[in-house]
């Protein structure tokens, strides 16, 4: 059913595009006629067949490109939504002669009761996990099952086509949750409650590292579907940052690290490593310093998105450029067609500062490391708010 809808949408879009194209050459012809009012116009008319031929060729190329692009993003769209198919209950493949009346059980599969109201998973929503891995180099093959590196930054990016919004949920890396652990040789060991950031360390391949994080985050969020994941080594931040010409922020704290100085309240365009250190630094001697870092990351992300959007609007080819720049530092299960769909859709969506939220909870000092315990009530409410829609 869904595929069929997609196909018809695709056709409609294609028709619209073709009409647009048809208008364009006419307009340019008109303007040429207006500017060239002298005798040259007569000569041009004789040459019209050649121009027509060239125009037709250009027209055909443009149409082909547009069709190709549309096919690409529609395939990407279909692939992405297929990933949450199981979360949306299908009609029961029933067990009874079809003439039997459907009894009113009074409850549909997938419904959730919250504060007396009934909600269901919003199947339009697309959810991506973005991980910042604490490795300062390009991605490389793991040497053993514990070598994946930890995820210092953990963000869920949620695209909602209903209100055309992008939301970001920051997850504290010390969040205590069920993670699967593996041994040195990559054999599954056990599932244990530990800091979320550790999930990424386990696994013999980079894809396994990433999927282990995806599993842990999905479970933390009561099993919501995650449509794709990107794990970026921290070193990739620098090239991403510079690709859009640096990011301007007003420093939230005063600190010095690795020869870089930051002063609270001071405006600066962060370039190269200055950006990396601004979002990576934390005072390891101070309790709960991760909170301070998370607010810097949040601020940076906000500024980055605003600047990237402006830059991409000016120069759309920047998307592909960013993708290429990031490739040596990134592992992802998002294919190029899916990325194209995400890029083309999300660009038109609104993204405001209050679209960034974080999981509420409490940080306590564990035996060796800090542990963050999420406020389950608040988390549940956040999930209802972001991923669910009211039935009645």
């Amino acid at each position, binding site marked *: 059913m869904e595929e069929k809808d997609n196909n018809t949408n695709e056709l409609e879009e294609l028709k619209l595009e073709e009409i647009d194209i048809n208008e364009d050459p006419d307009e340019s012809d008109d303007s040429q006629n207006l500017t060239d009012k002298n005798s040259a116009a007569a000569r041009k008319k004789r040459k019209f067949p050649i121009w027509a031929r060239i125009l037709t060729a250009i027209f055909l190329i443009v149409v082909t490109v547009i069709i190709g692009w549309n096919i690409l993003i529609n395939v990407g769209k279909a692939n992405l939504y297929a990933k949450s198919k*199981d979360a949306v*209950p*299908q*009609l*029961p*493949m*029933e*067990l*009874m*002669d*079809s*003439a*039997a*009346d*459907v*009894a*009113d*059980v*009074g*409850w549909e*599969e*997938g*419904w*959730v*009761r*919250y504060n*007396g109201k*009934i909600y269901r*998973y919003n199947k339009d929503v697309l959810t991506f996990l973005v991980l910042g891995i604490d490795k300062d180099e390009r991605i490389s093959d793991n040497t053993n099952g514990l070598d994946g590196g930890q995820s210092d930054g953990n963000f869920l990016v949620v695209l909602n086509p209903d209100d055309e919004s992008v939301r970001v949920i920051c997850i504290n890396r010390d969040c205590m949750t*069920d993670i699967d652990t593996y041994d040195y040789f990559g054999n599954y060991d056990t599932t244990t409650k530990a800091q979320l950031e550790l999930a990424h360390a386990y696994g013999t391949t980079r894809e396994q590292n990433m999927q282990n994080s995806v599993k842990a985050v999905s*479970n*933390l969020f*009561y*099993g*919501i579907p995650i449509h794709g994941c990107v794990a970026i080594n921290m070193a990739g931040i620098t090239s991403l940052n510079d690709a859009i010409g640096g990011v301007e922020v007003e420093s939230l704290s005063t600190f010095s690290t690795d020869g870089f100085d930051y002063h609270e309240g001071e405006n600066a365009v962060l370039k190269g490593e200055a950006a990396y250190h601004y979002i990576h630094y934390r005072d390891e001697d101070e309790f709960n310093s991760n909170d301070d870092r998370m607010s810097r990351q949040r601020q940076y992300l906000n500024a980055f998105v605003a600047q990237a959007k402006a830059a991409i609007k000016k120069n759309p080819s920047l998307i592909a450029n960013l993708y290429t720049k990031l490739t040596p530092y990134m592992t992802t299960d998002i294919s190029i067609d899916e990325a194209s769909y995400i890029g083309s859709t999300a660009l038109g969506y609104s993204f405001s500062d209050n679209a960034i939220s974080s999981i509420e909870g409490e940080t306590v000092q564990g035996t060796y490391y800090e542990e963050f315990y999420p406020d389950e009530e608040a988390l*549940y409410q956040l*999930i209802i708010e972001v991923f*669910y829609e009211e039935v009645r």
Partner: protein
Amino acid sequence: MGKNYKSTKRAPLIAGVTLCVAGLICCIIFMVTSYKKANLSNDMTNLQNYASVSASEPQSETSIFPTANVDIPEKNLNFSELHKTNPDIYAWIYIPGTSVDYPVLQHPTDDTFYLEHNIDGSAGLPGCIYSELLNGKSFDDRNTVLYGHNMRNGSMFATLHRYADKDFFDANRYIYIYTEKGTYVYEIFAAYTYSDIHLLKGLDITSDEKFADYLESVLAIRGMGNNIDNSLNINSSDRIITLSTCTSNDTRRFLVQGVLLNGRER
């Protein structure tokens, strides 16, 4: 040209015949299905005659059979009559608030027999509520698992899905199992979707320690539509019941679990 002419002339005739055949097929399908349906409901109403719920009254128990300290809806069950209908019937399950009010069967050799065989032994749906040979018939195993189809018409275990509603879960907490010896009462502590792993073969609960691990894992399951009550202090000395039915997803099951109250201190 001639051929074309012929075929257009024949068209109404072909259409007419096709229509007649289609109509005939529809009639046959309708007759067959309504006959099946009538048969099915006859079966069920007959069975319901063996059991009728009367006013709720504390059950008088012998000292050998531990009581549950819960009011038990009284049922006039005639087990000897039920045995005459089918000797594999060994208990009766009743869950107020749902339409679960059925005999419980266990086939002496074939575990999957009652998946697609009815009380009278006829093949087909809806099948029966049944247990497997890994479970005894005395409800003293660590986990007794009962299976029933998720019928679209709401029969068998379909209405168990109501337990996904928190309001319903909070208001309807008891499972009653009537046997010749006495009545077992279970308090429901969990309702959730789970993998289709075989609960008795696929999960090791052969020691108290393993059983405790399993119970702990159940209480830790996270899912938006799950209802799990952590407050009953369930531990490895408890005995539980699991009611298993299908979901729309082939590889997922909807489970309702209760803890046996008979002889349990609260």
